[in-house]
């Protein structure tokens, strides 16, 4: 058996009255890829932060190489060879990729090795291809994820921990990442992957640990545990959403029926969106009818953000005609920065979408009592885990924030719902909830546009599917309706954005 590099025993961590970890166990061995699975709120991220020195546990022990250690800062963690790749990006947007990679590297490289050379060698070895000259803010999420991984690898960690690294990568890129992780493990490192998608983890992990409610409920070699066993361990008696777990569409989940041509709700013709950096959308035509789910798959940074905003009536097209219904619900991608206001309570956050409706104001005066009732309703009907509607938006977990947003946007009684990566970062049950609501809404005749980087989600929920690449929308034919087919369409022109921005920068690159 491979030597154990890290062992966590009985780790506990509380935040006020909330228990995030209640006796978590984790053993990471050299030469292994280890998957950590768990629903939202299971304690994955807390455990990850404890391991990275970002949070101090209230109880339990951490051993590295068999010796107990106290990790009080990320620096401590690094000193023990623990490297973290965060789910939320930690790059400085205004610095170039090279500068970001060089940050904090002082003393971490072998003497005499320049950062540039180290980076080039690493890129060559790992195949994680990123442009080095552009500023990070010019790059898409996929590139940023690769940079995060490079940043961690530059310090040559013995123990590498990745938090949900696959969310923003194409299928092809995920496969390459997994190859790399296996290779890194083969060099004698302990590689840990924190994820909520079963097939991601099973595809690469040698062993898996499942967390539920802050406890380790299962540890097994990935061959030993079958999927249903893992699912049960993850969710307990909770809902099982096969899409969110990456198990493919539900057995009975035939895609919604063809559009009712008599009820076109959205009509885009020749829509362009252009900003100071160039084309974001180019000649987009799209019709959406009531009752259908139209899926748009694409790698981030290819215009789906702009498309979502045009469809939601939040962004004006530079050219072309846009016909939209009066009432539009919008589930934006960034829950905590676009969907909710952290310092607003639930009533105010619900009011954010509803305050303009005639029943919630008379003249300039807001009718808080009405909006409070709606917030109470949303809290109970959508099972938002919050002590009361006076809870601040920022105090909710991601899943509960999404419940509030979904509830609120459904409350709009809209004719069109635009959902942008609505389940990103959500756990199984929260994702299942969102998927169920989208299906229910479509069956009630609402037009739904689902823009997602998650192919499984798009495949499972959508009637018609489009791929977006470099601002161009292409329909996916029924023959190409699988991961490989859509993946190919998504990749077409994917690099173009990077090349384009490089060309626009011109002399800077010289």
């Amino acid at each position, binding site marked *: 058996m491979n030597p154990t590099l890290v062992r966590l025993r009985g780790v506990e961590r509380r935040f006020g009255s909330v228990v995030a970890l209640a006796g978590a166990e984790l053993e990471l061995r050299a030469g292994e890829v280890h998957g950590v699975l768990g629903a939202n709120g299971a304690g994955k991220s807390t455990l990850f932060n404890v391991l990275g020195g970002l949070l101090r546990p209230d109880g339990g022990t951490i051993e590295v190489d068999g010796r107990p250690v106290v990790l009080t800062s990320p620096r401590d963690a690094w000193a023990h060879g623990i490297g973290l790749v965060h789910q939320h990006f930690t790059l400085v947007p205004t610095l170039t990729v090279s500068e970001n990679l060089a940050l904090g590297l002082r003393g971490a490289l072998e003497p005499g090795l320049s950062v540039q050379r180290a980076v080039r060698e690493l890129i060559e070895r790992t195949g994680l291809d990123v442009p080095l000259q552009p500023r990070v803010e010019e790059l898409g999420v996929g590139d940023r994820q690769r940079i995060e991984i490079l940043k961690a690898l530059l310090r040559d960690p013995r123990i590498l921990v990745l938090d949900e690294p696959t969310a923003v990568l194409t299928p092809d890129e995920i496969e390459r990442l997994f190859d790399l992780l296996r290779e890194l493990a083969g060099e004698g490192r302990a590689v840990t992957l924190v994820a909520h998608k079963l097939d991601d983890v099973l595809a690469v992990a040698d062993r898996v640990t499942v967390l539920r409610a802050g406890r380790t409920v299962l540890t097994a070699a990935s061959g030993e545990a079958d999927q249903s066993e893992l699912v049960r361990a993850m969710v307990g008696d909770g809902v099982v959403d096969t899409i969110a777990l990456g198990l493919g569409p539900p057995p009975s989940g035939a895609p919604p029926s063809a559009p009712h041509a008599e009820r076109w709700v959205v009509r885009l013709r020749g829509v362009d969106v252009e900003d100071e950096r160039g084309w974001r959308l180019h000649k987009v035509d799209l019709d959406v009818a009531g009752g259908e789910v139209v899926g748009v798959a694409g790698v981030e940074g290819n215009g789906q953000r702009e498309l979502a905003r045009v469809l939601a009536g939040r962004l004006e097209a530079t050219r072309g005609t846009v016909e939209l219904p009066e009432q539009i619900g919008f589930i934006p991608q960034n829950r905590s920065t676009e*969907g909710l206001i952290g310092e607003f309570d639930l009533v105010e956050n619900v009011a954010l979408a509803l305050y303009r409706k005639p029943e919630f104001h008379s003249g300039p005066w807001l009718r808080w009592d009405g909006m409070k009732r709606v917030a109470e309703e949303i809290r109970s009907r959508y099972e938002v885990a919050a002590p009361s509607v006076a809870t601040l938006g920022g105090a909710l977990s991601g899943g509960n924030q999404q419940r509030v947003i979904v509830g609120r946007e459904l409350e709009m009684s809209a004719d069109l719902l635009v959902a942008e990566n609505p389940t990103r970062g959500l756990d199984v049950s929260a994702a299942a909830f969102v998927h169920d609501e989208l299906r229910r809404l479509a069956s009630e005749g609402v037009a739904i546009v689902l823009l997602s980087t998650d192919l499984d989600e798009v495949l499972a929920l959508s009637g018609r599917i489009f791929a977006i690449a470099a601002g161009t929308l292409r329909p996916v034919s029924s023959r190409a309706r699988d991961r490989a087919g859509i993946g190919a369409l998504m990749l077409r022109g994917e690099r173009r954005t990077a090349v384009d921005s490089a060309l626009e920068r011109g002399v800077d690159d010289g």
Partner: protein
Amino acid sequence: MADVQAQSVRSVGALESILTGAVAVALTLLTGAVLLLLGGFDPIAAGGAMIGGAFGGWNTFVSITLVRSIPLILTGLAVALAFRAGVWNIGAEGQLYAGAIAAVWVGIRGGALPAPLLVPAVLMSAGVAGALWALVPTLMHLRLGVGEVITTILMNFVGIYLAAYMVHGPLQEARGVFPQTGPIAEAARLPMLLPGSRLHWGFGVALLLAAALAVVVRRTRFGFELRAVGASPEAAAVSGRIDTSRVLLVSFLGSGAIAGLAGGVEISGLTHALYEDLSPGWGYTAIAVALLAGLNPAGVVVTGVLFGALQAGAGAMQRDAGIPAAWVGVVEALVILAVLAIDRIRRRAGALRAAGARGDE
């Protein structure tokens, strides 16, 4: 009933702000006492003079402390309104001078009008002038993306020196001896609020305005939009479909108008003429007044009076205990620093609590 609960949650926040302020003041006074000791002064005597000068008797309190608090409350409201919307208007000082200039001009020229017309005209012209003074930074911010902190500060210099030019030039008093304007017409003067004291109706104006702003911020659509834009412009635009530019425009100009009104009230209620050093930096102290009040309009009244007392007491300390005037400035600066530090600490505690409640994720 439902609303009562939501309100009570919010007023806990206000109470917390006031407590924070009290701690800040206590710490500052302690530091001030130590400074006095180091300077060879008797802190007890100084403190006695200070308290006596601010609160020593009803007439002292009303005629000195409250009178001094009027421009502080008004500029404090101006700053609170802007900051609440996320607009960093540091330009209340310049806007105040713009308002004062306009008020003097209208107050002198409009002498033929009866008081019920002239007083409102004076105050309104002051507000319009303040708003116009804020218009330049507003447009530069909205159209060109130039940071409003710098532009509002620069506009302060323009306003202060414009006032200086006025009192030496076009608006100088008839004999051309003193650097001040002639007096405004009797009909342009705000009446007294309490007979037998120096407390003029400007205090009433300040209280009414504070109450009106409190209601607007809590109860109206615009107030909600203002708070949303101030808390998160992105979420306000994306989830609320709020026109953030419009909200910024209105709150910025509104803030300028209130600061301008402060200048007009000072002219119409107290000085009846424009001087070169009309304001001892109210527009800057206003930032401390607003922050100490947690940007709550009602709280601004409390902190405005507090700072008015501080200034009244400092004057007495100088007069009765022989402490140099510079010490006042030091104390004020200390209060601002203490407020900022404590505000930060409280926020961090709040963020920790939020993170705790959030738990994992």
